[in-house]
């Protein structure tokens, strides 16, 4: 199957996904389950990585801006920009594509190979709507909070790193954070997050839903899903940056 066929099949899948749920009560239950699985269970990894990468960004910036002509406040300023613009929305989304993407593909793929999806269809249930829509809503609703948390912890990590290393003071760092603060950057980061969240939910779902073969097939599909989600996030990141910032 070539790329065009996959793209067409992906959009045909979306057409089935975006239907009115057959039972609101069942949909609400599925949504809260997905928020827990895809969102709350990702809190730990996002918090951990954001804190340490924020620290590394601040340290690297401090080590590279060693000219006496450049004020120390630039460290906080540069760290803030890097974290808000790229690290939190893009880097965290790529990590989530790995963690959540493989989970989505393997869970849906296993349902496919064990005929659980056939069972849903025989019952008269729109399996795509039942399985994928709650995942999309959960990621699109929850990931902005996750990414904002990543921003906050990344910036906090930078502050702590400066404090522990003695490369810059907390006062300089905070002054840098406050300098030329543009709220549009947060808006830009959140728009990107929404697009990435949609990709993280739908691309792995596509690979899982149309999986072929048994357990090996599910494994291969999980790998492909992570690769393709990452590729699409990177491309979308470029396009959105071009559209929103230039």
């Amino acid at each position, binding site marked *: 199957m070539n790329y065009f066929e996959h793209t067409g099949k992906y959009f045909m899948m979306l057409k089935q996904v975006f239907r009115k749920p*057959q*039972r609101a*009560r*069942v949909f609400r239950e599925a949504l809260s389950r997905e928020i827990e699985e895809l969102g709350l269970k990702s809190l730990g990894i996002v918090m951990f990585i954001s804190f340490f990468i924020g620290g590394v960004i601040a340290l690297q910036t401090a080590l590279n801006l060693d000219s006496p002509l450049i004020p120390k406040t630039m460290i906080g300023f540069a760290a803030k920009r890097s974290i808000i613009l790229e690290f939190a929305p893009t880097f965290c989304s790529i990590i989530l594509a790995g963690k959540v993407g493989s989970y989505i593909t393997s869970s849906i793929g296993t349902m496919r190979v*064990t*005929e*659980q999806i*056939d*069972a849903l*269809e*025989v*019952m*008269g*249930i729109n399996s795509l709507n039942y399985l994928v829509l709650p995942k999309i809503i959960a990621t699109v609703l929850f990931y902005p909070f996750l990414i904002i948390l990543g921003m906050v912890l990344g910036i906090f990590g930078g502050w702590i790193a400066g404090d522990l290393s003695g490369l810059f003071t907390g006062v300089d760092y905070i002054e840098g954070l406050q300098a030329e603060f543009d709220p549009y950057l947060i808006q830009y980061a959140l728009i990107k997050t929404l697009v990435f969240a949609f990709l993280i939910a739908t691309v792995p779902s596509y690979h899982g839903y149309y999986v072929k073969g048994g357990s090996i097939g599910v494994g291969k599909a999980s790998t492909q899903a992570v690769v393709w989600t990452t590729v699409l996030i990177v491309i979308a990141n470029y396009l959105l940056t071009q559209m929103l910032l230039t």
Partner: protein
Amino acid sequence: MIEVKNLYKGFNDVEVLKGISADFEAGKTNLIIGQSGSGKTVFLKSLIGLHIPEKGTISFDGRVNTQLTIEERRQLRQEIGMVFQGSALFDSQTVEDNVIFPLKMFTKQSKSEMLERANTVLKRVDLENSNKKFITELSGGMQKRVAIARAIVMNPKYLFCDEPNSGLDPQTAIIIDNLIQEITEEYQITTVINTHDMNSVMEIGEKIIFLKDGKKAWEGSSKEIFKTDNEAIVNFVYSSNLFKKVREAYLNETK
């Protein structure tokens, strides 16, 4: 009653079903038998709508599949119960959640009403004290019984079973066969079972359709299968010495 007329289905230029016509009567256990690759599963999946036939019609008590609207098709599917070969139970859920699931999706019953109905069908399949067990905690035979309970919880008019006793020991297989036959008679369901278990053929085959190379090669009852001299079915059913002897004994007895 299900009436199938001239059904054709293929995949990638390979024709699997080649014009099958058959009737399946209500209140009877109808069996589809045939060698692996004869088209049994494709036929069954075409009947339940998982495969779209290229030609031919399937009529469910006068409702022809090709003339149904999406809503009518959805309604029809709610009248269908299916027991899959591997049970196809939701393994992340408990027995009770699996059985209740169709009720949650298609009825407006309260939780207590759903639980009452689930307990009734679980009792019917002799699984009274397993409500809170997870599917992975059950044996193969118990999983099949949960699958039957889920299939009948909506009071279906049509019950389809794909190899319901594959992978089960002979004793459990007989229990499952008898359970399906009892339920079929009790609820007057049109039951279609896909099998290549000869014990099932002898025990519960009220009507048997034998498929060979995607075509119907023979049709009859479990009694007629002993008397037939149709070469294809004789070669298939009596390939084992045990069944040859059973046949000889039956024929000697009825002489």
